[in-house]
């Protein structure tokens, strides 16, 4: 507080000057404090937590037929059916009912400039697919386009040509493009699933497409054949068979009818290919104890990976091929462990439950799916490697085993006895939602393995 003395007549201006200046100065400072709050926005908030729609609505429109003859129309219809089924299979897309469509690009135009996007945003379609088909002299040409309706953009446009027998493959290639646009990954459309099925009571190895179509029998040993595993390039299949009297690992080239057999003394089981390499990990018991080894495609031992007394089985490589996850009973109960190939120690991953086996490493490297058994319930869990938090994906629906990830990590294929107490192959989204049966086949189906997609372009 500035004090002053009353001095009649004479005032030194220095003091009042200071007072004024000080006042103004503090005032200004004060303003600086007050003004921002005066102008600051304290907005109202609204919380929104529950999306009404869990799948992106996509409108698939009829194909424009350029020549217009019957065969062209037929093939066009087949192609659309394949397209819709494949898109609905993904679990994150939902094809819309054409009844709701306001316009028909097959007539009004299938290209960017010819589409009135309001017709599509108005009915809630976030994505639009148009197509055109030309059939001439046995050759089919498909033009396919994917649009973002809200941003009025063309996302992907492709033209495919080939014989009619390749129409399904063309559509699936386009679906892979769609997947790449939306998720950054090529998706599942060109991948295959290998599995075990019984033929007259004998277990053989089979394969099928990602959606359960095109089922083929691969082995005819008429013995017990188990545990199929695809190589990264999809050309080799490793599996276990008792064809020679005891469990041996057979490595078979699917196109060239050649291969090798790993048949050390004792058991040779649970093969898994190293990503991108012609090497495998497997559990061998010739030493008297079940341990995991790294082997060449011919069966020569490169190195021993695990080194502990007790069961070590079911290796699965990380996506970068540097680590394996496996099941081990080294501490008394079967649990899941991770080991770097170069290091000496294994890190335990699961601490809940007394029986955790059959691990599968997710393609993004962050999670492990596995089977946990508790009180006679056999269910599939997913555990985040960093947080160590397990999440149960199946519950109260039969026995569920053998999880295997889709190549883009969006889905899991597994064995389940939920239908009629007989094991069958099922798929579900990686979050555990929408489990459904993949294929219907006589007998019992188990142990599916999901391959990588065939390389594109």
């Amino acid at each position, binding site marked *: *507080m500035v004090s*002053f003395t*009353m001095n009649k007549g004479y*005032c030194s*201006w220095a003091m*009042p000057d200071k*007072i*004024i200046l000080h*006042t103004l100065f*503090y*005032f200004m400072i*004060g303003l600086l*404090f*007050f*003004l921002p*709050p*005066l102008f*600051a*926005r*304290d*907005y*109202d*908030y*609204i*919380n*929104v*937590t*529950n*999306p*009404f*729609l*869990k*799948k*992106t*609505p996509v409108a698939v429109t009829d194909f424009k037929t350029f020549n217009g003859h019957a065969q062209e129309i037929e093939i066009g219809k087949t192609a659309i059916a394949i397209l819709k089924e494949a898109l609905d299979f*993904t*679990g*994150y897309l939902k094809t819309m009912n054409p009844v709701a469509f306001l316009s028909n690009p097959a007539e009004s135009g299938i290209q960017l400039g010819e589409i009135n996007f309001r017709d599509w*945003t108005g009915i*809630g379609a*976030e994505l639009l697919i148009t197509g055109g088909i030309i059939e001439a002299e046995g050759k089919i040409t498909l033009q396919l386009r994917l649009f973002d309706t*809200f941003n009025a953009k063309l996302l992907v446009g492709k033209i495919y040509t080939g014989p009619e027998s390749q129409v399904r493959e063309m559509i699936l290639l386009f679906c892979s493009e769609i997947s790449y646009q*939306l*998720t950054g990954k090529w998706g599942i459309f060109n991948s295959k699933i290998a599995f075990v099925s019984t033929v007259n009571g004998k277990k053989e190895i089979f394969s099928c497409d990602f959606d359960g179509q095109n089922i083929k029998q691969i082995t005819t040993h008429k013995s017990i054949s188990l545990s199929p595993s695809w190589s990264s390039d999809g050309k080799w299949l490793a599996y276990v068979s008792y064809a020679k009297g005891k469990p041996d690992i057979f490595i078979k080239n699917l196109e060239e009818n050649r291969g090798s057999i790993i048949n050390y003394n004792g058991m040779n089981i649970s093969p898994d290919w190293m990503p991108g390499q012609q090497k495998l990990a497997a559990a061998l018991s010739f030493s008297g104890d079940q341990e995991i080894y790294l082997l060449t495609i011919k069966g020569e031992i490169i190195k021993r990976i695990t080194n502990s007394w007790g069961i070590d089985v079911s290796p699965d490589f990380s996506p970068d091929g540097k680590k394996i996850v496996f099941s081990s009973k080294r501490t008394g109960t079967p649990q899941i462990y991770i080991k770097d190939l170069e290091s000496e120690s294994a890190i335990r991953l699961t601490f809940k439950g007394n029986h955790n086996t059959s691990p599968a490493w997710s393609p*993004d490297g962050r999670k492990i799916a596995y089977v946990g058994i508790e009180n006679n319930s056999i269910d599939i869990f997913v555990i985040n490697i960093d947080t160590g938090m397990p*999440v149960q994906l199946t519950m109260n629906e039969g026995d569920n085993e053998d999880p295997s990830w889709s190549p883009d990590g*969006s889905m899991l294929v597994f064995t389940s006895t939920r239908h009629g107490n007989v094991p069958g192959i099922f798929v579900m*989204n*990686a*979050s*555990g*939602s929408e489990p459904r049966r993949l294929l219907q086949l006589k007998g019992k189906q188990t142990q599916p393995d999901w391959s990588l997609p065939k390389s594109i372009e």
Partner: protein
Amino acid sequence: MSSPENFKHRRDFLFSPLYGNGKTGIIFFSVSLIVHALFFYGIIFFQKFRLPKPMPPFIQVDLVSFSAEPVSQELPGKEETVKEIPKEEGIPVAPLPPAPPPKSQEITSITPDISLKTKPANLKELMEQQEKKKKELDEKKEKKPVIEPKPQKAVDPDKALEESKENLEKKIEDQNKTKIAQALNRIQKKVQDQGTTKQGEGSLASSGPGKKGYTPIDLYKMVLGSQIEQNWVFNETLARLDQNLEVRILIKILKSGEIRDIIYETRSGNQYLDESAKKAIKKTNPLPPLPPGMYSYDVVVIFTPKGLK
């Protein structure tokens, strides 16, 4: 502190021949003061206009059930607020964000900013300056009309509520969204049931405590939230199964209900989620018209998708 005497003396000094020429000095200074005063008054009034939200920081929108919030009157209280300020402690300041729902009384006795407390000396000076300016301003009021906040007339909350409800209902029927209408009915019913108990110590001087506990803007927010939710498409897989995501989008709504601006206040880091939130809002355009008396309305919509089962 300073006695009026001191102040008086200071005044003397202020108006003493400081600038050499006594008269021009006085004129200059008065003009300056007047301009400052006007400036202040303008700020106050402008702020007064902007102040209609000393209310809960957010409202949970849920069609099924909700908890009623205490009434926050802004409109009729304004007049008193402005007039009362010079007597009270401080310059009107918007309430601090995370404050609990203030009772209506607090509006009339707005707690000043913290920084004020650290400069008590200044405070007194400022207050007294203000008082002085106020007196000047009263004289000048007709000459410089400041923005007249419309809702200065005594608003009957009941009536306003009903009117806005009617508007909303009409809009709903137009848009064929019967679900919302049902929700509104439920809200009304609930409001009627709960209104009486929750009415704050009313300082709605112009009308007694209303029966309803909700203001038009509360209802509007509920409708807004549920409509956006209905239009929101979100899939965990496309979000790469990231957890604990949250995106905040600020929307500016015009009187007609049209959304003028959609701005990301905070991005989630997950582009898919951000896009999906923006699309949900775009799809909900245009909204029902704002409650009467509002020219525009800004609100932040927080999207937090629930995680895995």
